[in-house]
């Protein structure tokens, strides 16, 4: 109960007020962080790029979680903000001031928001460090069993917790975060059981996006893991989802971003028209699999970078000893080779 009364936001006044009390600060912070990320992505040589990325992510975390009060549910904001244009322009502006720059940068840099700014992604990365020993490629069968049991436990734990906190009314409002966590647990279980299903399971995020869009159009208040951090909204089931997403990141790195994040799915669609993407130069590739080892979403498979899954975090680029990977213009797609990189066989065991 003490948790419900805990207020973790620092600022309680609009820093850059416009139109009454609409705070322009989240917009300015978002544009600044995305711009810095875009510059660092193109850095050559990539001097301490991952270190700089951590700083950008930390600033994003401090600004959006501990500092400001933005509503950053981009899918909902896009739909509702769009519907308010020419009807209530103040609310339309307030709703869309974060989603518009994220989508605009997405058209240039793909899911740069996910890899460089998103606080949920950053927190998952931090928590995922705990699970790195378990998630390494070539782990023994025993380790795989441990992860499988953890994934099953997450599902059972979710069911038990939801049975305990289940609200007796508003099942749609409060049941959605719990349903998300149950689906996430099932997806993780399958992914851990056989990694070959990973590519297919990733497509579930489009269903998640469709579900989110459909619900919003039907006037259902769709909520997901990020509402707790961004707006202080502490529904019990949302807190459960946030805890579950962090637990899932230990079992499978960036599990929420891979399978269910509706914002990520929206940016995945935008990535199809993005100007710059991570590309692999086959002639330079030594098939060392260093890129696969560090990719948080397993977006590199068989010599091909899955743009829709790539978070543009550039960890693969910085890990590649032969410089075969880089951020390049989308026009240079033809250089990408379908030649498979030999995956570690143990990972498929």
């Amino acid at each position: 109960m003490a948790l419900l009364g805990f207020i973790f936001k620092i600022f309680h006044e609009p820093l850059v007020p416009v139109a009454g009390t609409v705070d322009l600060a989240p917009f300015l912070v978002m544009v600044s962080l995305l711009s810095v990320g875009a510059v660092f992505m193109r850095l050559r040589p990539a001097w301490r790029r991952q270190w700089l990325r951590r700083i950008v992510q930390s600033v994003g975390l401090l600004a959006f979680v501990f500092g400001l009060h933005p509503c950053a549910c981009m899918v909902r904001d896009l739909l509702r903000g769009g519907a308010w244009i020419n009807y209530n322009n103040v609310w339309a502006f307030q709703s869309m001031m974060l989603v518009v720059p994220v989508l605009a940068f997405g058209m240039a840099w793909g899911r740069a928001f996910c890899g460089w700014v998103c606080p949920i992604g950053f927190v998952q990365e931090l928590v995922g460090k705990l699970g790195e020993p378990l998630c390494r490629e070539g782990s023994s069968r025993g380790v795989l069993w441990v992860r499988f049991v953890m994934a099953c436990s997450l599902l059972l734990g979710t069911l038990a917790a939801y049975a305990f906190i289940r609200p007796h009314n508003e099942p749609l409002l409060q049941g959605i975060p719990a349903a998300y966590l149950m689906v996430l647990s099932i997806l993780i279980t399958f992914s851990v059981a056989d990694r070959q299903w990973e590519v297919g399971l990733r497509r579930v995020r489009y269903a998640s996006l469709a579900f989110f869009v459909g619900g919003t159009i039907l006037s259902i208040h769709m909520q997901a893991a990020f509402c707790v951090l961004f707006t202080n909204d502490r529904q019990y089931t949302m807190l459960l989802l946030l805890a579950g997403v962090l637990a899932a990141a230990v079992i499978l790195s960036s599990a929420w971003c891979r399978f269910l994040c509706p914002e990520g799915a929206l940016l995945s669609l935008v990535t199809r028209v993005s100007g710059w993407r991570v590309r692999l130069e086959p002639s330079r590739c030594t098939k060392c699999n260093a890129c696969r080892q560090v990719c948080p979403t397993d977006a590199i498979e068989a010599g091909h970078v899955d743009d829709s899954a790539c978070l543009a975090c550039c960890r693969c680029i910085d890990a590649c000893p032969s410089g075969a990977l880089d951020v390049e213009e989308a026009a240079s797609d033809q250089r990408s080779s379908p030649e498979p990189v030999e995956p570690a066989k143990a990972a498929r065991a």
Partner: protein
Amino acid sequence: MIKRHRFTLACCLLLSSASCRQKAVPVEKPLLAEELPQFDQPLLYAAWNQEGSWPQFCHDPLHSGRSDVDLGSAEMELAWRFRPTTRAWTYQPGFAVWSSPASGTIAGRPLVVLGSQDRNVYAVDARTGEKAWEFRPGAPVFAAPALGVVGGRAMVFAASLNRSIYGLDAVDGSRIWQCETASWSFTAARSVMASPTVVVDNRGEVLLLAGVWNADRSATQNVQSGECLAISAANGEVKWRRRLGSVPVSSPAFARVHGVETVFVACGDGTVHALALADGAVLWTAVLNEESHSSPSIGLVEGLAQVCIGSRLNSVFGLSASSGARRWRAETGYWVDATPAWLKEPSDGGPRAAVVAGSYDRSVYKWDAHDGTLQWQVLTGNYAYSSCALARIGQTPVVLAMSWDEHLYLFEAGRGQMLWRYQGGPLLWSHAYMGDSLWASPAVIKAEGRPMLLFPAFDGVLYAFRPIQPTAASRSADPRH
């Protein structure tokens, strides 16, 4: 050492100074002696001042939410239920099931008047729960109706989403006048109507104060206008209208401050305005920290008038009623859409003012009205969205609050101890968009001398409860007496 960490220190200083930023409050002169009674008799400037009535949203023009009804007991029995229809119209964002109720005795018959999602205004006999009359404006009525006596005639004023405010005969519900606040067009959108407030000005004229928001989505003649209107209650003529912004406007509150009849109204963009009742001139404007869906309420703190209002940045504010200067800000865990109610508690140094409001963080809060110090916080099962109603049991003040967990709660105001609660049925609709609607609030009335609680519930039923009067033996055994 300091040199090494000067950047970190500078950041910490910057953050702490930003979070602690507060404006100095100028010294104020106290209210005039003749202005003090309005806080003891909140219906003094209302156009309806029967004892035990609840003539408008939050009881009175101050929005104090405080009824002087003595419930006598915390044990309640269901007196009646009123369910006008089983039909639930399709939910749309902004819809609620009921408006907040108003109540008074009209032609010897105690009536409860409230609007419904089924596009009707109902008057219900408070003795039996039977429908006395209904009025069909053609669009839902989510603004609490208001009662007033105009030229010896009892009237009901109702604001509907069809951009109109109606003056009705309170005896039979027939329409006396209709005031269209914006003209119809093919591109006109549904308006947002705040609960009207009825006051008597210093010339004895009854005025209806209304907060309306109209929109026309036309690309060429686009309208997005939040206004405060003063309307003659006798004939519906608009005396003045003041545009306050492009977003919805709250229910206006009214008080006399330093000889000026002042209307206090908040705008959805987080601004609070004080307007002169005479001509709508803006006396001052204060800016909160976020958008506000709450309405201002006014109370007396150490001889000074103070405005309290909630915001969507997890705050309740205490503002000076004469200048708008911020006196204090109290924190909650989430939005405060409720209108803060003003509690007067007996203390050694005379009555002491406190403010009570529910928050979307599930809690009902009580703060000291002097400095915003938290006195208690009690958790309900879900969003505590409603504006609280205050009454008393003997000399003990009690708080009535509704929560999204479908319950009506009765708390003892001193420590926040729950005395009684009742669960209504589930929401009419399968879902509702959180934060788009202002849901109904409870009321405390007296019907034929007997106290009664009104609970406009989510399930489309208006519940009325009567206290079970304790026997002499049980009264002596009860430590509260």
